[in-house]
């Protein structure tokens, strides 16, 4: 695809994402019934759940990219791993904030060591550390290897975190049965959130690639002219 063609595609994509968000917001405020016990704050749930799932998917992409890097040592995998981890941190921050707003609305507390909030916090910490690791190492190759090993281990840790936080005392019942209007609202929110997450991962990967020096293997000529015989 030509650069001009790519640009148009990108613009249409983001315009569509914004439009879907606008639609989802409209649905939320006109169509969706307000929940009886909690009031309007409950509507945060429709943003919270899709973003939580997107976070998990971003973490999984980072995991797969980390394995990809460790087996092939190609920088493209490293760029994807870093990009998806970055997106995971941004999304997880939203999960934490919306989760805290929910807790405030439901129990009047900004923080509680309940399983869900604790899980979000640990996930956030895991991937923030990933970003910190990348910032701390200068050598490109070493940074990629350390990042990949950590990315692999961190994702394997996630199910263990999930299982361990379930031991903590929980303040609310586990699942709620959703009425149809609520399910439709959720679907209206899933679309723009997934588009946002996917678009961000792609954009950040491209940004990572541009910020690195041109890879010698791409252009096919050495980084400095060969002297002597060839």
């Amino acid at each position, binding site marked *: 695809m030509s650069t001009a063609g790519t640009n148009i595609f990108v613009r249409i994509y983001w315009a569509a994402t914004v439009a879907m968000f606008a639609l989802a917001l409209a649905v939320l405020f006109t169509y969706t019934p307000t929940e009886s016990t909690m009031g309007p704050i409950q509507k945060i749930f429709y943003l919270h759940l899709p973003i939580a799932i997107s976070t998990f998917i971003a973490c999984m992409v980072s995991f797969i990219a980390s394995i990809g890097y460790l087996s092939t040592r190609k920088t493209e995998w490293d760029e994807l791993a870093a990009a998806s981890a970055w997106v995971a941190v941004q999304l997880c921050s939203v999960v934490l904030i919306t989760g805290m707003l929910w807790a405030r609305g439901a129990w009047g507390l900004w923080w509680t060591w309940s399983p869900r909030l604790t899980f979000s916090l640990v996930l956030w910490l895991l991937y923030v550390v990933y970003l910190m*690791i990348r910032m701390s*190492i200068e050598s490109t190759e070493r940074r990629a290897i350390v990042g990949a090993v950590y990315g692999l281990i961190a994702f394997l*840790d996630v199910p263990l975190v999930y299982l361990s936080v379930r031991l903590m005392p929980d303040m609310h019942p586990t699942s709620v049965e959703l009425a149809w209007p609520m399910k439709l609202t959720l679907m209206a929110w899933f679309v723009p959130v997934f588009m946002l997450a996917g678009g961000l991962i792609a954009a950040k990967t491209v940004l990572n690639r541009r910020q690195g020096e041109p890879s010698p293997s791409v252009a096919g000529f050495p980084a400095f002219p060969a002297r002597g015989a060839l």
Partner: protein
Amino acid sequence: MTRAISQFSLLVRKDLRIESRSRQTIGLVTVLGVLVVSVLGLGLGAASNVAGFSATAVLWVAYLFSGVLCFEKTMAVERNDGVLAGLLMAPLDRGLIYLSKLASNLILMIAVAAVVTPVGILFFGFDLSAAPGTFVAVMALSIIGFASIGTLFSAVVSSTRLQGGLLAMMLFPIVLPLVITSTQLMLHTFRDGQPASGGAVGVIVAFDVIFMTVSWIVFEWVLEP
């Protein structure tokens, strides 16, 4: 197989022999652990309503800091005089290097825990009479998991300049499931008087098995002379 075992024991004996000559690691790490417990004891213990079973959390903080220092130092042995290249050049399965370092780390950590744990129990008045076996078993299993991943990470960061801080930053979030599970187990056993839940112990064992296996496999890919 017998060759592997003899090579493994050679590696471990070499590490322990060096440690016994220099005696650097064990002293430093133990003192650090006792200091952490003392600081927390001074800060928290003065408050009269600190529950005895919070000693587990205090011990974890001590283990985490001591552990990071310990893992860093066992790996640092291979950084002097380029001896790691000597190991990598030998007809040696690189996974054995991981297992031998893990064994050295475990031996050192258990020695440290043997000192730091009684100190913690003393300062916080933790009453273990209800289920001492559970306590020891849970902490031992947790330390195994901690050392498994700590050995891998210490190898990964040992060629970077920042070592200690970076290692601590990488390790702490990963071992949180161990911290959470063991502290919850202690609460249930000692405060609520319930028998140790199989599911909870299962989480710790799963952590140990998964991370020991993965670390053993990945170790080979990250060693650099």
